[in-house]
């Protein structure tokens, strides 16, 4: 295994069991992502890209095939070890932000640290640092309902970053945002990838959002149909 390989997926299948029998969602996915990559995943609705993200994020399990995350085969891990991966190795950013509405921004950002067993003073210090970094200094005591959608997504990114993960997974992070705000969020991701070498995997519908990434993976009907470098010129030619 290469030193800087973070995701290795081989012959991965995912089926959902329904009354009418198993429905395949992902078929024979084989994909490797190196540390420091910035990957955009595109595909029509129902192509399985969200399911793929959930499996990569260890909140869902594959039916068949192997998924090696940061050197460990996920299918061999127990629930607590999976929780530890979600907590320390992965930072998840959702389309709907998924902040706790009753908790302040500082509490929201520091939540993963509670499960990592970090003391209160340290939690608070790191949460405020990260809020500062995503451009929300001084908002620590606000509630999610008091800030805009773009700001909420920044809080969610701060929360994803707080345990210094190796991998950021963003499932349509700009799906609920207007274009201007979306580009602000994407600049933040680019910065994280460029300045800190953070590995980012991002699902999106929009080509101009995917254009921020360096590599593009296309899903159609549960299969990878395209995997290659992103070139702005090239982007125009790919039907989405």
């Amino acid at each position, binding site marked *: 295994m290469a030193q800087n390989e973070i995701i290795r997926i081989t012959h991965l299948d995912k089926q959902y069991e329904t009354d009418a029998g198993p429905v395949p969602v992902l078929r024979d996915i084989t994909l490797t992502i190196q540390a420091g990559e910035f990957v955009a995943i595109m595909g029509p609705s129902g192509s399985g890209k969200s399911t793929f993200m*959930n499996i990569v*994020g260890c*909140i*869902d399990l594959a039916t068949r095939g192997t998924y090696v995350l940061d050197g460990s085969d996920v299918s061999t891990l127990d*629930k*607590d070890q999976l*929780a*530890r991966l*979600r*907590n*320390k190795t992965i930072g*998840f950013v*959702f389309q709907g932000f*998924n*902040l*706790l509405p*009753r*908790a302040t921004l500082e509490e929201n950002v520091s*939540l*993963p640290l*509670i*499960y*990592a*067993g970090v003391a*209160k003073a340290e*939690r608070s210090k790191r949460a405020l640092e990260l809020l500062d970094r995503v451009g929300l200094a001084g908002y620590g005591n606000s509630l999610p309902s008091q800030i805009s959608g773009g700001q909420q997504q920044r809080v969610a990114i701060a*929360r*994803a970053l707080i*345990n210094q993960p190796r991998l950021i997974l963003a499932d349509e992070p700009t799906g609920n945002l207007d274009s201007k705000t979306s580009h602000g969020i994407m600049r933040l991701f680019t910065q994280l990838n460029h300045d800190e070498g953070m590995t980012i995997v991002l699902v999106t519908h929009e080509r101009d959002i995917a254009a921020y990434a360096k590599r593009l993976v296309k899903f159609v009907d549960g299969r990878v149909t395209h995997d290659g470098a992103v070139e702005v010129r090239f982007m125009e030619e790919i039907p989405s």
Partner: protein
Amino acid sequence: MIGAMLSEAWHAMGANRLRSFLTMLGMMIGVAAVIMMLAIGRGAQFVVDQSIASMGSNLFIILSGTATSGGLRLGTGAVPTLTINDADAIAELPSVAAVAPALPGTAQLVYGSNNWSTLVVGTTPSALSIRDWNIAAGYAFTGADVRAATRVVLLGQTVVRNLFGNENPLGKTIRIKQSPFIVIGVLAVKGQSLDGRDQDDSAMIPVTTAQRKLFGSQFPGTVRFIMAQAISARAMPTAEKEMTELLRQRHHLPERAESDFDIRNLTALANAAAQTTRVMSLMLGAIASVSLLVGGIGIMNIMLVSVTERTREIGIRIAIGARERDIRLQFLLEAIIISLIGCVVGVFSGVGAAILVNLVASTAVVITMSSVILAFAVAASVGIFFGFYPANKAARLKPIEALRYQ
């Protein structure tokens, strides 16, 4: 970590104050009911135990028996068949520790301008030891007084209060049915008997004095009943058998004839009464426990609603690294906080209500530390028990399903 979770649990409860309060109320009422019922039950038990202790232990009462006169059967005690000599003979039995004959009657007691009607019992000094009754002031009369039929009297506290007020009764002369008697002693406070009679409203005189000078009847030498104390609780059946044989022999009763006396085992009666009270207080406690159970189910109900409402939140927490045990602990802590606060408030209101019952209804209540701790411990475990199922349900949620929940 636990500190952070406690504060989160506290905030979660604060987010739905009315609901948390109502849930606590269920627990509170349960605990208060248990404590109050235990207090009342123990109070009743205390009263009964006290009466039993005041009666004396291993006690028999031998009553004069029935008589049949021209086909008409008269009730127990209709014919006085027991005598002081019977009592003396019983005292010789090896299984009997002490015997005292008794000839009671109601008489008017007069001192100066005060008068008071009370129960005057003619008996012997051993009555005091049998009844476990002490002399508060002065002296008891002696066997010599009984032999000489002297006019001396021991007064109960109620009689003293009514005749003498604050005056010292010792050495004073009172008149009973016009005869002068010297007060030589005051009996200690005895309290209520099992049937609720004031035992302090009585006086004791030598039995011979009662026979000859106060309650002289057409059957000289007889007494109304004899108190006998067995040497031990185990000796009671033997004592009863020996006394029956002895009295039948002394009364020259043929083999087939009915006994003309009736031996009653008072201790057995008293124990039955104590048993009844114990069952009653147990039942009160059991009924109150049902409300505790209902309170516990209330907690489970609310926690289940809370878990359903917060499914998405649980999904988020799992997605960012919460383990099953973290989620379980979080919801368990909420249930525990609710039940503990309910318990604490319940303990105070239960104790308060018991005291109120004591003041308003003047019913005896006994609040023991053990019953408070018991109620608290049971309630707390009920909260944890009923909190566990919802907490487990939350912990077992699948993250993708929980995140998809709207």
